[in-house]
């Protein structure tokens, strides 16, 4: 995939739930690469995960900062807030409605 961005999740119990949350937030064009000890979740140019989706799959009160303990690496650039994390590349021609705020 060209201009792939997104998290690389390490082996842990929550991987499936995080992947499902990311799928909820990015219904189209998501690619998942499973290499055993790590799982790449990626999309072209822009990918987002919200606290709302994570809470749905991992339980109410999930703090975004907890995602750090699951994420060994990521492709692209990152921007974090209390409500969402986005991965992006500036030069990847991201639609304006998807640009990181």
């Amino acid at each position, binding site marked *: 995939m060209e201009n792939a961005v997104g998290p690389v999740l*390490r082996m842990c119990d929550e991987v499936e739930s995080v992947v499902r949350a990311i799928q909820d937030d990015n219904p189209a064009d998501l690619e998942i690469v499973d290499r055993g000890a790590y799982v790449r979740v990626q999309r072209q140019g822009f990918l987002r995960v919200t606290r709302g989706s994570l809470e749905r799959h991992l339980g109410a009160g999930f703090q975004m900062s907890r995602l750090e303990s699951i994420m060994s690496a990521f*492709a692209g650039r990152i921007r974090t807030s209390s409500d969402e994390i986005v991965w992006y590349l500036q030069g990847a021609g991201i639609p304006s409605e998807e640009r990181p705020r």
Partner: protein
Amino acid sequence: MALMKREEWQDLVRDVDWTLSYADDDAVFPEWQSGNGKIPREAWSAWEESYKISYPEYVSVQAEKEAAAFAVKAALQRSTIFSSLDEGWKSCAKVHFGGVSLAEYTAFMAEARMARFGLAAPWRNMAVLGALDEIRHCQLSLFFAHEFVSKDPQYDWALKAFHTNDWAIVSARSLFDAMMVAGNVVDTAIQLPLVFETGFTNLQFVGLASDALASGDINFANMISSVQTDEARHAQQGGPTLELLMKHDPVRAQWIVDKMFWLSARVFAVLTGPAMDYYTPLDHRKQSYKEFMEEWIIGQFIRTLQDYGLKKPWYWEEFIEGLDIWHHSLHLGVWFWRQTVWWKPQAGVSKAERNWLNMKYPKWEEIYGPIWDQIIVNVNCGNMQATLPETVPWLCNACHLPLCTYTSSPDGKYRVRDFPLMHNNYTYHFCSKVCRQIWWEDRDMLHVKTIGERLLAGEIQPDDFSGILQYMGLTPDVMGDDAYGYKWAADYREPLGPKSSHPRPNSTRRREGVPSEALSIPINAKFGDDFVMHLVVVNTSDTMTEVAQRVAYHSVGKRVRPQDRAMVVYYEGRAVADDESVSQVGIGPFQQIFVDYASDSRGGR
């Protein structure tokens, strides 16, 4: 009570800059430490971290990570998993523990310096957390290795390695000193968090974790992938620093990235390449080293660098060509000089493994097949002495790795070349044009003497191979040997070629009968298609026939198949007459010669 969101208060509490009144700004943030360069002082107020975290969040998340890592360790400590791990795989872990544990401590120093001298308050804040991270990584690596010390003393090198002058450590220490502690903190932020942690450490800590898990080393896989979650955060100090540098001094930014990318790639070729393509048991290899490099470095990291406006490094084609070469040569060197390392290198060239190598690396058989074939003949003949070295490889003055890089020639053949540089009446040698250029530009940062130079300066006594092993701290209980006790060679019981033979031994010391005015001089020499250049001592009175024999001694019958043909010495690209002496030809100390079997027409090399 509902807590305020972090973004509602973090800008206020992390802005701990104030206008200094008791001291000058230059005194508090001196240029040689803070590295402002062409960036206006006020521009630093725009520095903003993209990966935000508060201290309470940090403590909470880190506690969770530690609990998870130690829970797995505690559970597995009672199991018999360790005894069932493959010896080749254990070498991956031993290389990691020795090569990485105290590099993590050096990284702590780098983070602490950024926490003190970084010119933006949010940066200093992130670096404090980064420093705490690196202490954690150092402690984890030492603690996880310590469990196995009573079972295998090679694990003791997790703590010991960086306190020795082992050649692999000299190479790693030279890189990490230049990357983490020798430069100002702006250079450090580009070199360590950006190039090394956003790029290369992913390969060792995440890529290798997949091989570890497949090999059954759950504990190791869990530990290294936990470490990398910290790196993913604190590596983000690099981005905003790079943005400022790209705006105000893009030439400096490009140079720092290019330089550190190359030097990191060189060291990873010996740290990670053999682990992935030779030590990890064949059935458990997830991808080849080249494929992991393509995934993590070419696909992921370079694309991000381009997003910041950087160009691909000027040496891109050489780097790509090196993905098929560097780590195979270095692996061959590590295996042949196996007594000089603290792990047991797995040769990794059984027939099945060789098929895999040829599938992943189509040029492998042409370049490395004949060399391994000669080694296999020697192993199967029981001529183990011919599988061990008696001198040292010539080491590169920039990356401190042996001169063993094959590059393609216009005739399609791959050859190992030397890239010398005369400076202040001293000849330096490099494995590549790129190492030579980096050294020339930044020679004030890269001035560690190679092991070979230390030997020639008399710093290593006795000045023979036993003295070298002693100097490197290798004791018989620790020094490496073949991981499987050479059982893999049984695959090739049918002779591959003529029985092992070896030229008459000739001492590298002065011989009896040499005229008293003759001097012994060290030269950098390579024989034929052998993969590496050696330090060979010749006498100024030696004829070229004698010089050829001295050079052949370290290659022919060991890694080069013997042939019943005369040998020719080439110096400065031309064949030299057999009866001319070293002094007549004008070969001086530290100069490079090439020796090969004579062909029908003697051309220059």
